[in-house]
């Protein structure tokens, strides 16, 4: 009897599109050329927007924000697998996914510009506002997934987060509850190998994030996060398992944060350029572009056109952003509760009177 194996597992890694732009046809997800072009367009738009946001931030027109350049393959790929009636419960490094969900660029600018109205993501987009406290929002995804299952909806929730978030207790509680209650949720980890200055190896001793699923009796899989086809494929399958079988999944999209953590960070303090450089070579947009060129879906003119259209959208958004009238101070009190409490009424009146006196 003595020492006998009880359970065995292995964790797989999925790759579809090679760095050179060649796909494994047996694994290529069913995407029409038009869809592939859209994917590319969204990724480019995300990149251009991210870049412009950075410039605005440096000019003092936006506050601190987290750049996503280099991670478009991961979060755009995953969000591309969502349907309108699915939910997205994001962290803060998923600009491309938010754009895909239909969030106007101007609203994102507004939010990162320090105006709460920017976080008023329209309900019907089924996309929660950015969650700043790391690791806390996955539980909301589990609750939403529970609600969808309970209501008999055939839809799922995708919640995204970084590998740093997996160290927070709430991640574990969310994973455990998702598996116990069998709710339609997909945990999507952008493992960009850094949590501010802390590298993956100091974050966890687990060789993969994907295998963390095993602690909860959940299915886990790793995917090349700079390979948008692999990410899309894995996300689509996981979402489908969630929608139809109420089976949660943990996806690890292994990528790299080529940028500083946020605009307040200086990554040179803690890592070398030699480490970063090879990852720049693995750029997900260029990789997809290479594939599209070999398939005749893109050429120089087309690429320039995509870029120009993206830039135009960004420019329009910036113009609209600059035209926004700042919120009034009375707004501070209006959304704490459905109805203002006597305290809030009093405090609002006090502030408005004080401002009137000063004028």
């Amino acid at each position, binding site marked *: 009897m003595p020492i006998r194996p009880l359970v065995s597992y292995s964790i797989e890694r999925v790759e579809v599109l090679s760095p050179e732009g060649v796909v494994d046809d047996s694994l290529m997800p069913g995407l029409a050329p038009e869809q592939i072009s859209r994917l590319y367009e969204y990724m480019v738009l995300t990149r251009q927007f991210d870049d412009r946001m950075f410039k605005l931030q440096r000019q003092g027109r936006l506050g601190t924000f987290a750049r996503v350049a280099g991670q478009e393959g991961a979060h755009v790929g995953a969000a591309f697998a969502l349907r309108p009636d699915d939910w997205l419960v994001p962290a803060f490094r998923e600009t491309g996914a938010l754009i895909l969900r239909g969030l106007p660029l101007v609203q994102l600018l507004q939010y990162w510009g320090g105006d709460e109205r920017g976080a008023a*993501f329209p309900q019907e987009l089924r996309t929660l506002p950015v969650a700043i406290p790391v690791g806390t929002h996955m539980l909301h995804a589990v609750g939403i997934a529970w609600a969808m299952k309970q209501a008999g909806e055939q839809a799922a929730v995708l919640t995204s987060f970084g590998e740093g978030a997996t160290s927070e207790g709430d991640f574990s509680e969310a994973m455990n509850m998702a598996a*116990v209650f069998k709710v339609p949720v997909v945990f999507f980890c952008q493992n960009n190998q850094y949590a501010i200055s802390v590298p993956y190896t100091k974050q966890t001793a687990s060789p993969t994030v994907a295998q963390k699923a095993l602690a909860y009796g959940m299915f886990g899989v790793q995917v090349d996060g700079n390979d948008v086809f692999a990410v899309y494929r894995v996300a689509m399958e996981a979402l489908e398992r969630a929608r139809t079988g109420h089976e949660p999944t943990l996806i690890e999209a292994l990528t790299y944060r080529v940028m500083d953590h946020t605009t307040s960070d200086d990554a040179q303090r803690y890592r070398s350029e030699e480490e970063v450089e090879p990852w720049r070579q693995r750029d997900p947009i260029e990789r997809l572009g290479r594939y599209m060129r070999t398939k005749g879906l893109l050429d120089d003119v087309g690429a320039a056109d995509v870029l120009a259209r993206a830039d135009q959208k960004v420019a329009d958004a910036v113009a609209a952003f600059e035209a926004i009238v700042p919120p009034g101070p009375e707004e501070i009190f209006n959304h704490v509760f459905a109805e203002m409490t*006597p305290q809030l009424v009093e405090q609002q009146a006090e502030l408005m009177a004080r401002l009137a006196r000063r004028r």
Partner: protein
Amino acid sequence: MARLNIVEAIDQALSQEMQLDSKVIILGEDVGRDGGVFRVTDGLVQRFGEERVIDTPLAESGIVGMAIGMAIAGYRPVAEIQFAGFAYPAYDQLVSHASRMRNRSRGEFTVPLVVRTPYGGGIRALEHHSESMEAVFAHVPGLKVVIPADPYEAKGLLAAAVRDPDPVIFMEPARIYRAIKMEVPEETYTLPLGKARVVREGKDVTAVAWGAHVRTLRDAAQRLEAEGEADVEIIDVRTLSPFDFETVVASVKKTGRAVIVHEAPRSCGFGAEISAQIMERAVLQLRSPVIRVAGFDTVPPLAKLEDYYQPDADSVVEAIKSTLKF
């Protein structure tokens, strides 16, 4: 009408709210088959099924965090935290998300969530089972904090909390869970959140408490009346946040004296807020300083020393006499 204790009144309120609104669901540790460790959810899983009365894994942050998601998606979760001393792991979810999702999203997403939890000492319990930390919830913008003092209030306030569009921490005084029985209407009713109640009118001194200590005040008031020492006006705060300062201030303006009673540690307890409000709104009418009769700034002692910690009628009587003699 039947004579119910607080446990039964809450059980009934939950049952009726679940009956009325299919979006009302219950979740927490041992709330199902076991009916909760205090039997507050007794019979509910039998009546409404495991889909609506959910035994969760042992994870308080998880319970509240998941309930936030349920609430965002249109349900009205009533989460139970088994004892208030185990609510701390959920504090982050309450402060960082439940209380601010509405504000963050400018009303696009809201969290109509109730977190029920027994609190307070006097039950000869193990460590961490006697916590009375209402103040750390009352300080959080966007949370409502409600504490009933008897079965009638328990039923009506809980119904109101369940129907409220915003997150409510509903703290149940474990000590009097079964100690008070009273007539409670069979039909559903709500009591307004944000309104204190004058339990007993009096002219000499205003005594303010919530939860189990409203009873302490009654005892003290009776004794003082019997002794012909004072006519005490008793206010049951009911809702710590939003706090009904108007009722309290009106009373203090009338009596000119106030004694506030709570068992939470004195420093930075909710008594301080009430005292500060009286200072700001009625100091000219005071005939003696507002006094707090509170728990000490210590950990609540275990059973052997517990009785020394709790405010009791004796200490309230003393405090009231001292304000009268001032």
